[in-house]
């Protein structure tokens, strides 16, 4: 990778440090590969014989974020699932620079979809610990991951007792339990209260500062600076 990105990071970091936030200290120690760039070229998506979108391209440098918007059924979730490798691309290609050559794109992504991927019979801590182990992450980061959305006091409770908002926070804590350079967030703020949305917002900003990439579909305005926005939808032309 060219040196340019390191320069960018150096320039950005003091700017965000000047704005202290509870989350900043948590995200700071996390070492993640900060040189991943992600590009999509002319990708298309088909579901059930219908073309949801085609000719979609974007180009994300380290530290950049992409906002996906559009009405229901326009294909926001499908796009995120395509990037996560869960849906095949109907056309086009997805490329990554800066990673080991044998790492598939999906393994660079942390996908937090509509469903929280929580086992209700496990405790909050066990849920996170499993993801850290399974996704091959450093288990020493677990206390910080629990603290990221304030779940530390609930760590030993069964996840089945959590409220909808707390479950969402547990799902989002996965971003810290198994840090990966590309965050794919599908309506991450659903069921979250205002304070938690701010935490999430700050977490995304810190992730970007560290050189990560975030692709977010959301209807809630975030303070995060998105460098690109993609609007999916059907033109009304008959």
């Amino acid at each position: 990778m060219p040196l340019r990105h390191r320069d960018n990071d150096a320039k950005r970091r003091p700017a965000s440090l000047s704005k202290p936030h509870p989350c900043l200290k948590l995200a700071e120690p996390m070492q993640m590969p900060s040189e991943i760039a992600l590009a999509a070229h002319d990708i298309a998506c088909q579901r059930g014989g219908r073309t949801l979108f085609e000719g979609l391209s974007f180009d994300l440098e380290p530290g950049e974020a992409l906002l996906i918007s559009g009405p229901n059924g326009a294909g926001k979730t499908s796009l995120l699932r395509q990037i996560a490798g869960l849906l095949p691309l109907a056309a086009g290609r997805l490329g990554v620079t800066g990673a080991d050559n044998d790492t598939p794109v999906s393994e660079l992504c942390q996908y937090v979809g509509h469903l929280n991927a929580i086992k209700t019979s496990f405790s909050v801590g066990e849920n996170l610990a499993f993801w850290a182990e399974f996704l091959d992450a450093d288990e020493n980061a677990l206390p910080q991951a629990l603290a990221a959305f304030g779940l530390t006091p609930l760590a030993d409770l069964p996840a089945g007792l959590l409220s909808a908002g707390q479950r969402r926070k547990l799902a989002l804590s996965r971003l810290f339990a198994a840090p990966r350079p590309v965050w794919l967030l599908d309506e991450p703020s659903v069921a979250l209260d205002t304070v938690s949305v701010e935490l999430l917002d700050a977490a995304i900003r810190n992730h970007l500062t560290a050189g990560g990439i975030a692709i977010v579909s959301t209807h809630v305005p975030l303070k995060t600076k998105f460098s690109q926005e993609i609007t999916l939808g059907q033109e009304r032309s008959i």
Partner: protein
Amino acid sequence: MPDLGPHAAFIIGAYAIAFVVLGMLTLITVVNDRKQARMLIELERKGIRRRSTAKPLTPSVKTKIIKSKPARAAAKRKPTRVRKPRT
């Protein structure tokens, strides 16, 4: 027809069942085929055509680049790896 002996009922029965089953299958196949063909003609008569010919809806993608960035660097960089579409 020759004398089929004591087991004539079984022989006739076997042939009868075979012909009834295969006959019904043929009948159902032909009826279904006609039905679908009629429905298709009916729909086409109403002027509804397939999207590949008429394109009434265009799925659209609008990309907005909010922050300008070094365009030449982005253009120069080639993806090292490419995930081929699976379909």
